[in-house]
């Protein structure tokens, strides 16, 4: 018994002749690793958003009640979405900004749907650490750029939802949405 083990050990210790046992060890370990991974994945994936959470992933918004100059907040996937009716002056301000003056350069036209420049729809979550900026109501503080102001760490966004003053690093994110008619959008 001891003799066979020594023999196998000698063969297994690398060297030019890889043995059948080396091969079996490799295949068995690789199989075990793949098996553990296959068992772990369902457990890990179960923590991702579930089907019922994903099912709630679109909402329709009627735009008629939103007065010019103010906005509303709708809940989409548990996140607040700002839908704001911009005034002509606000649109002009957003379009006239030089891109070089922006923290994350992006043209206003890339942030609204063509032909619907009076509607800006953004995810109302500050890109710094996730607070909800103020500014939907005309009476809210809107910061120096007339858009939104985050009370947590003082980030400021313009009327296109672009960050103009830190610490937020990015513009307010845009949700996927489409105009179903001139007065109705579908988010998600």
């Amino acid at each position, binding site marked *: 018994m001891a003799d066979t083990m020594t023999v196998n050990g000698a063969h297994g210790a690398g060297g030019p002749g890889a043995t059948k046992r080396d091969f079996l060890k490799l295949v068995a370990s690789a199989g075990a690793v793949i098996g553990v991974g296959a068992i772990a994945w369902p457990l*890990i994936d179960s*923590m*991702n*958003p*579930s089907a019922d*959470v994903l099912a709630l992933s679109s909402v329709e918004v009627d735009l008629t009640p939103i007065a010019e100059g103010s906005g509303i*907040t709708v*809940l989409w*996937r*548990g*996140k*607040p979405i700002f839908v704001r009716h911009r005034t002509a002056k606000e649109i002009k301000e957003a379009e006239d900004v030089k891109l070089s003056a922006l923290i994350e350069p992006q043209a206003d036209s890339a942030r609204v749907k063509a032909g619907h420049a009076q509607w800006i729809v953004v995810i109302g979550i500050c890109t*710094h*650490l*996730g*607070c*909800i900026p103020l500014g939907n109501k005309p009476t809210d503080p809107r910061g120096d750029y007339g858009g939104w102001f*985050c*009370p*947590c*760490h*003082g980030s400021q966004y313009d009327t296109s939802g672009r960050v103009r003053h*830190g*610490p937020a*690093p990015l513009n307010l994110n845009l949700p996927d949405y489409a105009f179903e008619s001139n007065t109705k959008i579908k988010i998600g």
Partner: protein
Amino acid sequence: MVGLHKSEFANPVINWIDTRLPIFTMMQKEYGVFPTPKNFNYFWNFGALAMVNLVIMIVTGIVLAMNYKPDAALAFDSVQRIMRDVNFGWMIRYVHANGASMFFIVTYIHLFRGLYYGSYKMPRELLWMIGVVILLLMMATAFMGYVLPWGQMSYWGATVITNLFSAIPVVGNSIVTWLWGGFAVGDATLNRFFSLHYLLPFVLVGVVFLHVAALHITGSNNPLGIEVKGPQDTLPFHPYYTVKDSVGICVFLLVFAVLVFFVPNFFSSPDNFIPANPLATPAEIVPEWYFLPFYAILRSVPNKLGGVMMMFGSIAVLFVLPWLDTSKVRSCKFRPVYRQFLFLLVIAVITLGTVGAHRPEGIWVYLGRVATLYYFLHFLVILPVLGKLERTLPLPESISRKVLPGGGGPLPGGAAAKPMEKM
């Protein structure tokens, strides 16, 4: 009868068990006669206090879980029910909530003890590193526990802290969605935090066991920071240190009771009396006091990813501390220069804690950056360099030489102590 333990206990029942499973012999060895340096000061109480605190947290937590509902719609009200309707619910919850603060007070003092007396040095490096793991587990448990009452500060604290992971390049947002189980902190998040908040304390018990096991291999450090040279330097753990620990436990419970019965909301935020509202952020989000220094480090760095890395780095640096400190001398008693720097570190951490509680404006930004800079400078530059340059004071020959005039006689218990010249 080969393999049976030869028990020395006279009681036949204990003897019968001990013969088959020598737990009594083990307890006697590890907590009865266990040789412990005879010169401990009260700083050496805090390990035992932390253990008592952990037990208090687990016991109160198990009872609270019997009445708590981990559901976004029910959680806040179920906590109010515990406070108003459940028999002694108010007391159990206040003990649990303030127990978290007490746990961190005790642990931070325990950690300071380790820094001051060089308890992390050879051969106790692994013991120290296990301790840092315990600290990390404690922080994770405390953070998730704070989310459970589902008030405004719970909700927004969870949002801000989980959002830290979005700073990770490429996969950050997927990780955050995975942590949340949705697209914002919500019901799924609360439910899993409850599950993990219940689990982690028991993991903590396991790691604490390893911490103690490692301690019983190396033996305790002591205020002089020199190794035990023989039985004349030690006392049996029982009754000497069981009694000394009991004194500490009485004081600990006294402070604890004052918190629970007189100022139960001293450490809590008024915003957490408002139910969680995903559509309104409180004017100021402040974490619990024990996270403030780390929060201040996070905010001191203008770059999001940089801030997150510095914050985690401030704990990670403790892991490698045994190799950063190049001095062979353990105790600050014999390192006069290092002692000054260590007090500077304490001031820096307290400053960071104060900065973390204020809005990052004006002087606070500046103070936070200076203190952050010193924190890392201390560990990464001062410790390695100072160990080579510092002239340390002469170390005493042995513990008993220093403690007892004439070197101390044999143990009161009459253990086989030889005159130390021969050791």
